[in-house]
Structure formats: structure tokens, C-alpha cells
């Protein structure tokens, strides 16, 4: 009797076990499927960006033999070099390369092979090394973006001439240059060192990167101390009452407010009311501070709550004051969590563009900002501007800028993980 009963229990349990295992397997597969799906999307995303963007890291250059213009004479000084028309110099050099070309229109078409920005490049090179003008020197200068697109194969030379930006004649000249070994794809230094430009071949992200840097510096300097201090006050010192509850609820709500609303607030508060300059990284930083603060406060409070109460009791028990307890024991233990939260918040701020549009950081700015009050854009806004530009060459540059931004974000997240691992302590 006893055995039969325990036997039936065993059978029932086994039946149940099978169901349980089945459920577990199903759950495992579901989880795995979700992960795989996520990875597929991520891979697709990276593949698109990289395949679109990698070609922007090189730029077609044309080799030109430089000769000093006749107007310069035998002896010259730096002022004369500065005043020299390098545009004319390039025109002359090109014409020397193709002596058979004549007529205004043809000459203009020939000139269009070289970037309008090439004159600045040449000027920079000559100012750095005046001996280039002594004759016999050759210089690689950026080709026009249409040429660049053709060389990179983004434009099909089989399309009818009417639908092309480059004429058959221009393509013939290019072929001749290529045959002479005067066309080469070289590393696109300008992409990393110059500011924005209407000409894609000389447009760069440096101006936007510097703008982002100033902005994030302002954000970090304000949001981290204020956020941590707020969290410490709310978590350790504030009495629990209706007011602190209200503050808490509102901080949580602020974290969920769409970022563009912070932009509107910044416009009203910092520009219209406080009279700070438009398009300035300082204002951008202030707006991003408002946006990041709730995130940092929430993360910092979570980090503080995670510190075991036994540590607090231990500190109080030997006669530490509340402030000493917080500074000596709670804060060091909570710091990794706070730093992680801060970096995640900063990474979000780095990728934010909507609020910056509201405060005029979307302007076309060529100069590299020298300080937080100079007009500037930010990396994500630069991406937005380029994505909106009609030139074909901006397509790849947009993707390249996205890659750079992703690189920054990856680095920041890696730093967050590193800090967490490095300062994580057992208790």
C-alpha cells in the first residue's frame, strides 16, 4: 500500500517534471531567439553604416606640379605669400597641365576638377614650406566631390551625360590624369581636422567635435556635483515627508521628459531671459545639464541605497557624525555606481541633438570654436546637417561621422564598465 502510493506520487512528480523541463527549454529558446534577433539588427545597422561610411575616410587627390607665378618675381617675403591668389595659381598650374584647353567655359570646367577648398590647402602648405614655390615641387590637392564620387564609383560614368554633373570632356581629362598617375585616393585628414563646409571634400567634424567637447565639459562640471549632492541630500539627510516625496516624483518625471522640451526651456531661460549667446556650447551644456541631472540623481540614489545599512551602523556606532558616515564610508562604496550612471548620462547627452536645435546650435559654422561662448554645433547636429545636404558626397560623410560618434560612445561605455570593475569592492 505504502509503495504503490509513493509510486503514484513519483509518477505524478515525473509527469510534472517533464512539463517543467519543457517550459524551461521553451523559455531558453525564446531568450536565445531574442538575443539573436537583437544581434542581427545590430549587425545590420553596423554593416550599413560601415559600408556607407568607410569610403569617406579616403579622399581623391590630384597631383599638381607647382610653379611660382610670374607676378611674384625672384625674391618674396611672407606677406607676399599671404597675399598671393592661390586660386589663380591652381588655375595656371592646371592650364599648364592641359595646354590644349582653351576658351572660358572649358577652362572653368577644367578648374572644377579641383576642390574650391584646394586653394586654402595649397596656401597652408606653401606657408608652411615656401620652398614649394622654388619650382619642381608637386602637391596632392583634394579633388572636387563630384570627381571623388566618380573615382570611388558612387557615380556611374555610363549614365547619359545630361544626367551627370561631370561632362564627358571632364571625364576624359580625369582619365588622362589617372593615366599619368596623378590621381590617388589618400587618407582624408580634413575630415578630422576641419570644420564644416559647403564643399563635402573639405568638410570635417573637428568643429562639431570641439563643440561637443565644450558642451559635455560644461555638463559634466555642473551635472555631476549637483546630481551627486542632490542624491546625497535626498537619500541621507532629507526628512521623509510630503515635500521630499513630491521632489522625488518630479525628479523621476523629469527623467522621462522628451529632450526637446529641455531645449525649449533652455531657449526661454538661458537665451531669452538670461541673455546668453545663441549657438554657444555653454548654453548647450546648460540644457544638457538639465536633461542629465535627473538621470544622474536617480543613478546616484540607487548607488547610495545599495550600500548596506550595516556599514552605516558601523560608522555611527563608533561615533561618526552623519556627514562623516556619508563621506568616509557610504560615498566611496557608492562612487562606482554613481560614476557609471554619470557616464551613461553623459553618453546620452553626447548623442542628443533635438534640444540643441532649439538653442541655435544647428547653424552652419565653419570656424572651430575657441571657447564655450563661440558659436558651435555638436556631433549629432553635424550628422543631422550633413544627412540633410543634397550633395552625394555627404552621404558617406554622414555615415563616417556616425561611426566617429559611435566610437566616442563605445569609449565612454567602456570607461564606465572599467570604472565599475576597478572600483567595485566587496563587503
Amino acid at each position, binding site marked *: 500500500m505504502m509503495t504503490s502510493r509513493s509510486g503514484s506520487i513519483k509518477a505524478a512528480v515525473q509527469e510534472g517534471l517533464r512539463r517543467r523541463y519543457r517550459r524551461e527549454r521553451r523559455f531558453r529558446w525564446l531568450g536565445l531567439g531574442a538575443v539573436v534577433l537583437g544581434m542581427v539588427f545590430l549587425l545590420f545597422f553596423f554593416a550599413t553604416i560601415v559600408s556607407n561610411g568607410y569610403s569617406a575616410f579616403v579622399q581623391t587627390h590630384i597631383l599638381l606640379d607647382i610653379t611660382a607665378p610670374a607676378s611674384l618675381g625672384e625674391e618674396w617675403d611672407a606677406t607676399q605669400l599671404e597675399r598671393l591668389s592661390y586660386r589663380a595659381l591652381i588655375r595656371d598650374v592646371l592650364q599648364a597641365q592641359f595646354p590644349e584647353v582653351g576658351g572660358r567655359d572649358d577652362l572653368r570646367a577644367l578648374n572644377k576638377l579641383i576642390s574650391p577648398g584646394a586653394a586654402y590647402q595649397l596656401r597652408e602648405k606653401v606657408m608652411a614650406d615656401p620652398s614649394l614655390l622654388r619650382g619642381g615641387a608637386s602637391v596632392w590637392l583634394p579633388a572636387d566631390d563630384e570627381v571623388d564620387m566618380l573615382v570611388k564609383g558612387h557615380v556611374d560614368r555610363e549614365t547619359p551625360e545630361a544626367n551627370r554633373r561631370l561632362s564627358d570632356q571632364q571625364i576624359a581629362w580625369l582619365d588622362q590624369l589617372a593615366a599619368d598617375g596623378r590621381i590617388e585616393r589618400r587618407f582624408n585628414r580634413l575630415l578630422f581636422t576641419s570644420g564644416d563646409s559647403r564643399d563635402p571634400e573639405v568638410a570635417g567634424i573637428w568643429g562639431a567635435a570641439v563643440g561637443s567637447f565644450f558642451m559635455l565639459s560644461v555638463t559634466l562640471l555642473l551635472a555631476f556635483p549637483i546630481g551627486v549632492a542632490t542624491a546625497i541630500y535626498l537619500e541621507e539627510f532629507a526628512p521623509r515627508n510630503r515635500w521630499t516625496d513630491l521632489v522625488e516624483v518630479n525628479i523621476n518625471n523629469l527623467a522621462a521628459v522628451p529632450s526637446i522640451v529641455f531645449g525649449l526651456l533652455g531657449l526661454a531661460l538661458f537665451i531669452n531671459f538670461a541673455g546668453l549667446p545663441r549657438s554657444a556650447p555653454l548654453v548647450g551644456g546648460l540644457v544638457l545639464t538639465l536633461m542629465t541631472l535627473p538621470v544622474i540623481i536617480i543613478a546616484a540614489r540607487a548607488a547610495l541605497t545599495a550600500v548596506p545599512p550595516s*556599514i552605516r*551602523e558601523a*560608522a555611527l*556606532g*563608533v*561615533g*561618526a557624525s552623519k556627514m*562623516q558616515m556619508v563621506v568616509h564610508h557610504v560615498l566611496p562604496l557608492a562612487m562606482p555606481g554613481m560614476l557609471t550612471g554619470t557616464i551613461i548620462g553623459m553618453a546620452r547627452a553626447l548623442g542628443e541633438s533635438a534640444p540643441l536645435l532649439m538653442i541655435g546650435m544647428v547653424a552652419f559654422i565653419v570656424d572651430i570654436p575657441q571657447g564655450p561662448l563661440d558659436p558651435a554645433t555638436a556631433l549629432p547636429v553635424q550628422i543631422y546637417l550633413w544627412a540633410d545636404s543634397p550633395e552625394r558626397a555627404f552621404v558617406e560623410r554622414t555615415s563616417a561621422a556616425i561611426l566617429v560618434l559611435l566610437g566616442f560612445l563605445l569609449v565612454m561605455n567602456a570607461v564606465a564598465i572599467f570604472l565599475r570593475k576597478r572600483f567595485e569592492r566587496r*563587503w
Partner: protein
Amino acid sequence: MNAVSEISNVAEPDSNIAGVVQPVRIASVDDGFQTVGDYRSERPVIEARGVDVFYGDNHAIKNVNLDIGMNEVVSLIGPSGCGKSTFIRCLNRMNDTIDSARVTGSITLDKEDIYGRDMDVVLLRARVGIVFQKPNPFPKSIYDNVAYGPRIHGLARDRGTLDEIVRVSLERAGLWGEVKDRLDEPGTGLSGGQQQRLCIARTIAVGPEVILMDEPCSALDPIATARIEDLIDELRQNFAIAIVTHSMQQAARVSQRTAYFHLGKLIEVGGTEQIFTNPAHKLTEDYITGRFG
């Protein structure tokens, strides 16, 4: 906020529940209840008189009188939730950290009112040290654990004095021999028993008059427990000690006086020997003979 003088046993909530559903009550714990035995000590350091503690509406300690005397160990025993921890935490105002906790009655340390206006809570906790149930060393080096209290109280002028305090404290806690070569290793890396002795050393280092211990051995194995018990016996030479314990054997081994708590009331207090051999109150007898607990 001088709640001390209002010895309030008047507004006992017991009277509120007349007519409402009566909770199951043990008949002998009545309203006008008086502690059995002499709660006074020959050389009192801490004197608690008419102490009541409330957590919000929960009346956790009811009209308790008890002395903690120099060179003696008082053990506090009783079933879980009877208020032993609550009472002991009143003695150095650790309950201040709990928002809902409210203490009334009078507790004095060397005749000074603990809850008085002139009493600085930081100084109080330096004079009345506490050791907790779960060893809770700081996640710092062994040295820094012991040196922390003296440092914040400015007890050592120079490094030499501090080293001396650390050494003496660890010696008194019976830990010096085991850790003297690795003072810069983390205190959290020690075994449970060593950690608890480190916590005792940390408490001693501040030079308190009274040491409170809340079930200091409940997380330890028997060998570590025996070491701590020996240690408590030695510490008695210099301190007044109150220890909460769940083990009646432990109470019998280490303490000279024993106080039995039940549902927030101090039922009986007396010499440990007398309590364990000849308890006067029925509840005490039931508890120590293991009828409940």
C-alpha cells in the same frame, strides 16, 4: 525635544483595545505590571528608568527600568521580537536613525541624561560602543578599521600613538597575534569570528565606558563563539557590558546579571545564577526551561 522627563506609562494603548477584538494575551503580563527582582546595580553606569519605545504605533518597549553596571555583564534574553535589540539600541541612541522610533523615559550615563539637550550623540556613541549581530567591518584595511574611531575623535596626535591604540585594541580583542603581520589587508577578508573580534577592537579603540553587544555570536561557529565569550569575560575588567543573546548557555557563561524580556516588558531581572536556577516569574521559568522561545 526633551522627551525624557515625561515618564509616560499613562497613555498605554492597552486601554484602547477594550471592546475591540482582544488579542491573545498572556494573563500574567498585566497592565500595572512590575518587574520581578532588583533592576539596580551596585555600580551603575547606565540607568534606564521608565523607558518606553514606540515604532509609530507599535509599542515595542514598555516601562523598562534597568541598570548596566561597571565590571559586570548584563545579559538580555527573551523570545524573538520582545524588544531586546530595541532596548539596547536606546542606550547609545542608535534608534535615532529610525524615523518612526520614539523614546520616552529617562536614560542616564554617569547621571547625565542621554537624551538631554547637552548630550552630543557623537560623543555618546564614543562612550557607549556597540557591536552588532552580523560582523560589519569597514571595507578598509584591518588597521584602518581599528584606527577609524580614534582618528575621527582626534584621540591620537601622531602616528605612533595611533599605532599603539590599534595594537592595544587588537590585543584586548584577542586578535593581535592573528593579524599583526597583515594589518594592511582588508578587514573583510578575515573569517567571521575574526571579523567580529575586529569589530570589538574597533569599538574598544575609542575607549568607551560601556559596550553593547547585540547577539554578537549568532553568526559564528562554536569555536569562534567560545573565543568571543572568553573575550567578554576579560573585557568585563574594564567596561560595563550589556549583551543580547539567544543562547541561555551563553548568558549563563558570560553574565553576572540576567534580564528576561517578554513582549516589550522586562519580566524579571536578577543574578544570572538565581534566574537560571530559581526563576521567580512563571514566564521566565517557561522560557529558560524551553517551553517557548
